[in-house]
């Protein structure tokens, strides 16, 4: 019991910085614009956030093993395209179409992971290749056209409980599950260990290969889950969707304090990172900022967040010594 209280205490301490940043953002936008605290703003945020959050959860896992997955944006487009084709052309029922869509993500992740592990290549390069391949495949699946799907997928966004949309609930569930896996399971422990020192793990008699493969598969599958949310929101499959989304996902993870060097990270922090980006986007839009300004400010926020995180990290590691 004592430990539980202590855990809660450290948990709050871990996330306090993110909470403060988020509250500060909300306060700034709330004070400087008239209509920030409205239902519309929050619905916009709640609609936008599930896809990027789910994608970022997968990315967190990949970054923890000191890898990277640049292909998730394209995988989102490809699996979204497959979802569209399954519903529109093959007239498959939604659940089957979703399974096919997730199958695409699984295969992409499997290929990424297999090549990285088998030929010991940097994941940066392998997934850069997949970024092109999956994007190309998305174009050929849709014939380079946006495919209108309509009500068949809109049900997903329209389903709601307690005022929250289904995609938002699913995203939160995935965040919680991801954090649980990372912090409490043997699998999570192994991937943190691999990110810290892969050779030591191997010499301890644990093959890192299969574990890393799973991480890439999880990342691919989550990208296709994000594709379902994304497609449902737009009620159409567009082969151009998800362009640059991999970078947004990485930004969310990094704002959350996960290290690109591996071995350190938290899914809950990633969620906060995604929230911060979304609130920032919505708030700036409310203030009437144009796209160029928005992007410049977002860029600065990403770097500033990471600078702050290094200070926080240094401070806490000094406290330990």
């Amino acid at each position, binding site marked *: 019991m004592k*430990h539980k209280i202590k855990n809660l205490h450290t948990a709050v301490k871990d996330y306090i910085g993110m909470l403060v940043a988020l509250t500060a953002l909300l306060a700034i936008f709330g004070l400087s614009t008239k209509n920030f605290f409205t239902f519309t703003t929050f619905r916009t945020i709640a609609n936008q956030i599930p896809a990027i959050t789910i994608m970022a959860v997968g990315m967190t896992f990949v970054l923890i093993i000191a890898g990277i997955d640049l292909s998730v944006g394209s995988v989102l487009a490809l699996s979204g395209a497959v979802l569209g084709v399954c519903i529109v052309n093959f007239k498959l029922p939604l659940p089957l179409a979703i399974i096919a869509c997730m199958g695409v993500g699984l295969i992409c992740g499997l290929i990424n992971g297999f090549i990285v592990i088998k030929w010991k290549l940097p994941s940066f390069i392998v997934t850069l290749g997949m970024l092109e391949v999956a994007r190309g495949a998305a174009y050929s699946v849709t014939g380079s056209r946006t495919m209108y799907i309509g009500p068949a997928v809109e049900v997903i966004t329209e389903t709601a409980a307690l005022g929250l949309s289904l995609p938002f609930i699913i995203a939160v569930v995935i965040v919680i599950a991801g954090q649980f896996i990372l912090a409490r399971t043997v699998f999570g422990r192994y991937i943190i260990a691999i990110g810290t020192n892969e050779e030591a793990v191997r010499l301890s*008699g644990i093959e890192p290969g299969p574990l890393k493969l799973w991480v890439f598969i999880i990342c691919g599958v989550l990208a296709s889950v994000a594709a379902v949310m994304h497609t449902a929101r737009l009620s159409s499959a567009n082969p151009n969707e998800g362009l640059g989304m991999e970078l947004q996902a990485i930004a969310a993870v990094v704002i959350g304090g996960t290290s690109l060097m591996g071995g350190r990270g938290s899914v809950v922090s990633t969620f906060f990172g995604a929230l911060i980006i979304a609130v920032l986007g919505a708030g700036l839009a409310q203030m009437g900022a144009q796209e160029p300004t928005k992007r410049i400010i977002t860029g600065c926020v990403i770097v500033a967040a990471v600078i702050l995180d290094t200070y926080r990290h240094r401070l806490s590691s000094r406290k*330990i010594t």
Partner: protein
Amino acid sequence: MFKACGIHKSYPGVKALSDLDLDLRAGEVHALVGENGAGKSTLARIMGGIDTPDSGQMHLNELPYHPQNRAQAESSGVRMVMQELNLIGNLSVAENIFFDHLPNRFGIVNTNRLNQDARQIMQRVGLGDIDPGIKVRDLGIGQQQMVEIAAGLSQRCRIMILDEPTASLTDKETALLFDQIKKLQTERVGIVYISHRIEEIITISDRITVLRDGKLVATRPTGAVTSSDIIRMMVGRDLSAETCKRQRKPGQVALRVKGLSHRDKVKNVSFEVHRGEILGFAGLMGSGRTETMRALFGADRADEGKIYLYGADTPARIRTPRDAVRAGMAFITEDRKEQGLLPALPVRMNITLGRLGRISRLGLIDAARERAIADEYIDLLSIRCRSCEQPVRQLSGGNQQKVVISKWLHKDCDILIFDEPTRGIDVGAKFEIYQLLGELADKGKAIIVISSDVKELMAVCDHIAVISAGRLVAQFSGQEWTPEKIASAAFSEYIKNPTQGHQPNEA
């Protein structure tokens, strides 16, 4: 020439140095000894400008000396060669030596002059027959150390601080280093020499300062003390190498290796180890001892060779470390930081890594049980740490090694391979590890120990095998061995084949 008075330095939670005085004369070799964590390295870092003291005065040639960083210390002529080499592997030897003052015109490096100057300095440290243009990563670790020293000599040098300079040198290289040190003495350079190797210190130093727990124990002329005096001052109690040696009764054969080969590093090596027995592996650095064990453990894929376990008639299939661990083998590697530990993670995660099955159910880790087991091993091996949550990189070398050993004890293996288990570890912890090796053998484990310290092997082992240029050339048991016999066996293959014998080095 150099004087330090009342130096205090504390890191949060630790008092590294308190009220320390030290003086250094021009042209003397002043040895600093003490257990790990005694404060030797901290003092060296303060002298070298890497750390600043909390209080206290330092004077260099009667002038106040308070360097704020390494560059300031170097411009005053204080140079440091640290335990962890500070070289850039992808640059040439010459570029490394002159790294911060490359001869150039408008930023374009004058390569000819660079190599010429480098050759001169390299001759001074006995690297005369090496091409200055060769990349540092292609050199052996001993030669790299000499390059680092050469870099120190490339500019004005009044004080040279050597932190464990011989930790990875062969005997031959050590002798070369000592010649250099003597040459520096005649040039009136004051040398601070930090080492765990007491015999070395007695050979090379003029005065010895012993530190314990950040405090000065004594400064004595080397001629006035014996090695057992020094050890007593360091640990504050008597220790003797013989304490852990006991008559043991070996049991059945645990491991039989036949014709193991790996590339040109390991050539047709065969041996066997019984339960309850400690088999030592002696040999020069780079002779293939580590490679033999790596091939045996599946860390490198062996080209040939059969491994029979626990008296079985059919050879075991060991192609990966996973196979080896499943077969009950453990490998405590030479390089703790790179191959043994998860440095940023807490002690508890390091201890339980190999056997998470024991603390988990259905893939879920039982945190309370994990802490209990970690505490149990911390207690058992008296690992000095604040708690099982402390990141293992913050521990001293000896305690890190104990964490690695705990990991394998928790895994409960029957065959344990220790590769240089006492490298970079202070005397007190060394004896604890010897004792532990003995206890494990008494419990019926089969144990292999690789060490470059022949005396250490003679103190703990039942048998000693000698590897020379990848071949197992001799095996001795307790009555037959002498340091001379072992040394001549270790050199034997290199003498037979002089082309190979120039510089055995770890790859």
